[in-house]
């Protein structure tokens, strides 16, 4: 670790927030964008079978899928944080040859079509896969068709959101506090836990929320890699996709539930963490 960073000027950031006036053209374009985001949800609300909504909502199939979705996405977020924070730390603070390539590799799954991610996982971790065949042969353990497989698929596509956000927060951090703690004799782990992590908390939470949202919405990698079975691998997006073919009413209600859950979390956290993202204290 080479902490040669000179003291950098603290970015001026709070200037004029909330006091700017936009030109009319920009206002119109922004308004169009808002309508563009709002309309599909209004379409769902308009189409929703409100009379049957409650019975669909409380049906076993809906609750099972919702429970599984929450369970898997939270585990995936936890896994993304466990592995993603050290990865972000490495990418932000250690110079090594090929760092750009490693970063690209570790964030590739974010831009891949999810189905491609699923197929790739299949040939890596499936029963006949590159690594998966040994898991099966030595431990009798296979990932596809299991809830763990869902979590793996979700982690694979969601972790980059956390890594990029945390890495960015680490890069913005004024390293003088860490340097000070080090000169006072604290170990690297201690500094990371007691100085760095609290300072990047907003970035960490923002990254975790993004990763969670991505995991909750994950469809392509899950259905390709983990299959589809109620209670085991059929998360909300899969249930919605399939019920839409047989029973569109149910699909609409399930979609609204998923939207409500995601929207609720984003609203609750957004103003505090997703908007600014810089350390609240300076």
């Amino acid at each position, binding site marked *: 670790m*080479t902490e*040669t*960073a000179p003291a*950098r000027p603290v*970015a001026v950031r709070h200037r004029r927030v909330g006091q700017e006036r936009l030109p009319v053209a920009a206002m119109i374009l922004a308004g169009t964008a808002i309508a563009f985001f709002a309309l599909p949800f209004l379409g769902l609300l308009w189409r929703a079978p409100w009379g049957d909504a409650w019975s669909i909502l409380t049906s076993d199939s809906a609750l099972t899928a919702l429970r599984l979705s929450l369970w898997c996405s939270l585990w995936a977020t936890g896994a993304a944080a466990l592995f993603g924070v050290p990865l972000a730390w490495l990418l*932000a*603070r250690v*110079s090594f040859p090929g760092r750009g390539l490693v970063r690209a590799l570790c964030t590739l799954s*974010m*831009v*891949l*079509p*999810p*189905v491609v991610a699923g197929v790739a996982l*299949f040939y890596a971790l*499936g*029963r*006949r896969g590159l690594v998966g065949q040994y898991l099966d042969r030595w431990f009798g353990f*296979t990932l*596809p*068709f299991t809830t763990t497989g869902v979590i793996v698929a979700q982690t694979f*596509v969601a972790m*980059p*959101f956390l890594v*990029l*956000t945390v890495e*960015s*927060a680490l*890069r*913005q951090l004024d390293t003088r506090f860490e340097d000070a703690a080090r000169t006072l004799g604290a170990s690297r782990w201690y500094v990371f836990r007691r100085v760095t992590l609290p300072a990047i908390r907003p970035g960490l939470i*923002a*990254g975790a929320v*993004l990763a969670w*949202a*991505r995991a909750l*919405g994950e*469809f*392509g990698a899950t*259905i390709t890699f*983990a*299959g*589809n*079975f*109620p209670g*085991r*691998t*059929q998360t909300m997006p899969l249930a919605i*996709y*399939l*019920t*839409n*073919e*047989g029973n*569109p009413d149910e699909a609409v209600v399930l979609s609204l539930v998923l939207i409500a859950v995601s929207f609720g979390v984003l609203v609750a956290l957004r103003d505090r963490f*997703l908007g*600014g*993202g*810089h350390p609240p204290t300076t």
Partner: protein
Amino acid sequence: MSRRSQPFLIPVAALALIAAACGDDDDSAATTAETSAVETTEAPATTEPGVAGDTTVFAATSLTDAFTEVGDAFSAAYPDATATFSFDGSSALVQQIIQGAPADVFASADMANMTKLTDADLNGTEPEIFATNLLTIIVAPGNPLGITGVADLTDPAIKVVTCAAEVPCGNYADQIFAAAGVTVTPVSLEQNVGGVRTKVVEGEADAGIVYVTDVIAAGDAAEMVEIPADINVVAQYPIATVAASTDQAVDEAFIDFLAGPDGRAILADYGFGAP
């Protein structure tokens, strides 16, 4: 050695990427939209002998190989006509058509999904049965687990995949299990029969319920364990034009070609039965 701060735009960019990553479902619809746009400009009203233009056929996954070949033969027979295909589970396709996808012809793997089209009054011609198919158990080459029939599929050590109940092949599988009086718990319910075939061919699952035609199409990569006729289901494949199609002549020419000697011969090659 410089590592200056990056702007904190990354979460925003990331959100944009969520949207981008979720958009891959619509590709097939977009492609078919293009082809149908071409069709309207390219299909002048023609006289009797010359069939011209393009017909966009939404067809069940199990028809993929056979219809691709029928399409080539159709173009060879009518040099000015082409058939463009979109293959998926019949339930997904009929849902797309009801939502306005630009299909000209719909070929379903069961009557139930065709009925959704006729109930919505969206069919042009009346549905007619053009082929039949049987269900079978698909296993790895050499049948390593020695599966002899559907009764063996109840063994929890055997990983079974079927289609979801919404898809014809899943509905048929349920009927077969009921007729055999067995309860099978699959490890996965796939959204079309291609998913079942792939899972078995790639070794992820041990057995699946598919159409006879799927095992034939898989060649050396899979083997079939026959399901006896008394519990098997004869899948009826209906076809009809879609009312919204702007050129019914070429659509009907495709259906006639399919039901004619050339089409029937190709279907038979792939293991489909005559209606």
